[in-house]
């Protein structure tokens, strides 16, 4: 009908404009989304941190493969000029690479034809007080891309530590809009990579360590206006819980629990922020993410299940309303913040039925696989057999069966708890090879002692209340603080690990899988490595200028396959590197596990790009030369 009105009014230019606007408003969202889906299919693009909406971090490219990966050499590199943690991965769209940085969250656009030339740069001025309310170093996890619709230009969406969400013109870097998503005065910061669905820019929040009440917010990508906001705790209307919530699994809990599982008003400062990775299924129109830990860490100060912190969500992208929510760690006692990556796959379950799945390696040491249409629990297995706070997850009730020996409570120092608060898996963006049905998981192998203490809540200040001692897990070397990580290939249906290897330090940043039978990842001590994804055999490695806490990506440009990775050690494992070596206490507590890291790497961020034999645009020596005034 719209089409008919448009054609019948062709005679009048002004009416046509009205009709065009009308059509734009109704049909543009779907087309922008389709454009994003199409762009993500091209090997020349990497338009979101997990490559496409499934967050599989899997590339079908085979130019670099097990046979020739030994010939990978540096093609070019770029220094961001900044210290501190560089998490996530760059984006590549339409011949440009977009690079993000740690605080103060600069953004650079590089020309892939001449990467020595910065096309534009955006350097925001932020209130330096934001630094002192950041939980764990001054990291940022990346950017989002919206493809434009002919009327509004293509945009790069970014977060700033000071709680702002900013849209930049992707071609010029000019600020298009900027909104305050949270207030640093009450401890709300942003470190996450925003996420674009249709014409919405989604963003979570950080600051559970300061008693922030976590939320997820959608903004109109063209104007920056808020469209909806849902919270992790509080009344159902604010959490986004309606009549059909958890219909398939009523035992997960349904109504009134966002307040009913808290004492008094504690939910108002109850944490549940989310700063990890999102995934989206255009067919179900649900997006998935995990809400984080309750506040404070000291469990004695917040009796109850503390719903809906620590929850895997399936929410409608248009409204934010929750279809299902599964709480993994009711009444958390260890800071097992549930924000980790959600990877979507389609696989046959044990009964042979094809299902839409989501797989989530959680901080608490369990890797969960759910039916992403209704939230059914399909499998829940330990990330390592040394996980001890939980004996198993009861698939029927969904509840973890705890071992009380590893509980934490006031006037008690819990010992040898595995995993540590850092989790056996943290923010790393892992990958999934659909041809092998294997997930490639970067693992922390760290355990801890934990002693709570009481403290008052004050807005904008840390609200933690626990002292921690961390050290390598049982398979590591506790004398020398080495053997802190693993890399594993996991089958979510059988629950088996096809292979696993130990690493000197955590594999903090995540993995990339390719059809070249390869899995790539970076290490904290500054190597990028490639393994045979079938066998785990180490095939290639290269020493980078600094340690890695981001994940690799790959793209094709002018027929050449490149692999790119950000380096720049930091984040929680790297916070100790800002201290000086002589300080005898630098390295206690949370830093303790990584006290040896300073002997392997130092801070300094950038991107390094690899190709076979180092093929790059400057192989033609005339590229990028100054040839005099024209």
């Amino acid at each position, binding site marked *: 009908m719209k089409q008919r009105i448009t054609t019948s009014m062709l005679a009048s230019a002004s009416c046509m404009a009205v009709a065009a606007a009308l059509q734009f408003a109704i049909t543009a969202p779907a087309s922008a989304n389709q454009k994003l889906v199409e762009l993500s299919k091209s090997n020349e693009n990497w338009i979101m941190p997990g490559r496409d909406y499934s967050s599989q971090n899997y590339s079908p490219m085979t130019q670099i493969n097990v046979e020739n990966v030994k010939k990978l050499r540096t093609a070019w590199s770029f220094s961001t000029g900044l*210290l*501190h943690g560089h998490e996530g991965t760059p984006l590549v769209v339409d011949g440009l690479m977009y690079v993000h940085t740690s605080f103060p969250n600069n953004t650079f656009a590089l020309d892939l034809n001449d990467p020595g030339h910065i096309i534009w740069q955006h350097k925001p001025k932020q209130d*330096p*007080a*934001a*630094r*002192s*309310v*950041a939980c*764990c*170093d*001054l990291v940022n996890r990346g950017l989002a891309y919206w493809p434009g619709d002919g009327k509004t230009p293509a945009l790069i969406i970014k977060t700033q530590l000071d709680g702002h969400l900013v849209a930049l013109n992707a071609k010029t870097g000019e600020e298009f809009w900027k909104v305050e998503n949270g207030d640093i*005065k009450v401890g709300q910061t942003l470190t996450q990579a925003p996420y674009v669905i249709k014409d919405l820019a989604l963003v979570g929040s950080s600051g559970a*360590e*300061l008693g922030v009440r976590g939320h997820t917010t959608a903004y109109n990508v063209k104007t920056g206006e808020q469209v909806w906001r849902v919270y992790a705790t509080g009344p159902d209307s604010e959490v986004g819980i309606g009549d059909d919530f958890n219909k398939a699994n009523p035992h997960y809990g349904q109504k009134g629990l966002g307040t009913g599982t808290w004492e008094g008003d504690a939910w108002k400062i109850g944490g549940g922020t989310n700063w990890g990775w999102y995934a989206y299924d255009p067919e179900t129109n649900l997006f998935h993410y995990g809400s984080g830990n309750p506040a404070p860490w000291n469990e004695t100060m917040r009796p109850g299940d503390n719903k809906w912190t620590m929850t895997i969500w399936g929410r409608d992208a248009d409204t934010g309303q929750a279809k299902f929510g599964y709480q993994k760690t009711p009444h958390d006692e260890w800071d097992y913040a549930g924000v980790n990556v959600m990877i979507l796959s389609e696989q046959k379950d044990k009964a042979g039925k094809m299902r839409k799945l989501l797989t989530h390696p959680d901080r608490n040491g369990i890797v969960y696989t759910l039916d992403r249409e209704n939230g059914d629990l399909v499998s829940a297995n330990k990330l390592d057999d040394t996980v001890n706070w939980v004996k198993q997850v009861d698939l029927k009730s969904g509840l973890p069966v705890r071992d009380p020996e590893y509980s934490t409570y006031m006037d008690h120092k819990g010992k040898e708890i595995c995993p540590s608060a850092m989790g056996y898996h943290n923010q790393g963006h892992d990958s999934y090879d659909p041809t092998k049905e294997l997930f490639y998981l970067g693992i922390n192998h760290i355990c801890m002692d934990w002693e709570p*203490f009481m*403290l*008052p*809540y*004050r807005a*904008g*200040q*840390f*609200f*933690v209340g626990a*002292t*921690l001692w961390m050290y390598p897990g049982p398979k590591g070397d506790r004398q020398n603080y080495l053997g802190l990580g693993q890399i594993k290939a996991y089958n979510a249906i059988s629950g088996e690990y096809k292979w696993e290897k130990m690493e000197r330090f955590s594999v903090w940043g995540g993995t990339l899988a390719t059809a070249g039978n390869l899995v790539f990842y970076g290490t904290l001590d500054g190597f990028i490595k490639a393994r045979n994804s079938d066998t785990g055999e180490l095939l290639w490695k290269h020493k980078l200028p600094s340690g890695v806490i981001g994940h690799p990506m790959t793209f094709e440009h002018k027929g050449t396959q490149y692999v790119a990775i950000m380096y720049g050690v930091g984040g*929680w494992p790297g*916070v*100790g590197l*800002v*201290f*000086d070596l*002589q*300080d*005898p*206490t*630098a*390295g*206690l*507590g*949370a*830093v303790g596990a990584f006290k040896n890291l300073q002997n392997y790497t130092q801070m300094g961020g950038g991107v390094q790009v690899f190709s076979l034999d180092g093929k790059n645009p400057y192989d033609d020596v005339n590229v990028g030369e100054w040839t005099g005034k024209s």
Partner: protein
Amino acid sequence: MTLKKIYKKWACVALTGASMLGATIATANAQQVFRNTITGEELKILEVAPKEGRDTPAVKSFLETGINPYIGVKGCLPRGEEAYLVACSGCHGHLGEGKVGPGLNDNYWTYPKNTTDKGLFETIFGGAQGMMGPHGGDLQLDEVLALIAWIRNLNIGEAKDAEWLTDAQKASFKPFNAKEWDGSGKAEAAKEQCTIPAN
């Protein structure tokens, strides 16, 4: 500083003289210049600090002398502890033992000037590297002085290296004992006033 810059600075003072005069009177002739621990830039204390807690005798005295009169004053410790727990313990540990930030309860300091009251105040107020952002805007000045007194009280190092103590304070110094503090010390301290000692 070049002559040109000096000239410019004086011109600026002349122009803003009226407002400067007001500020000078309010701060009772602040004589100390406080500087950012990393950049060395002058800290604009009265532009940043919360309005409350500025006009106490201790703050006035500290801004003039750079000496914290609350050091060793028992009555200030409960206030200092509370400020510490909310603003510092998240990174530096419950007892200053170090966590994601360095320990504060020994005699080793990342920034050597932190051994003086003035230096430690500058680091807290203006911030330092990394996550040690400025706290000048979120803590009252009088509170910062009580906080510094608490940090000094947490010390378990040796008195002879504690540059922030006077000789008399060194002589009576006892390393911090958490059990004693939680047992009776805190209750006793709460009974006393947080004021500048008479002499």
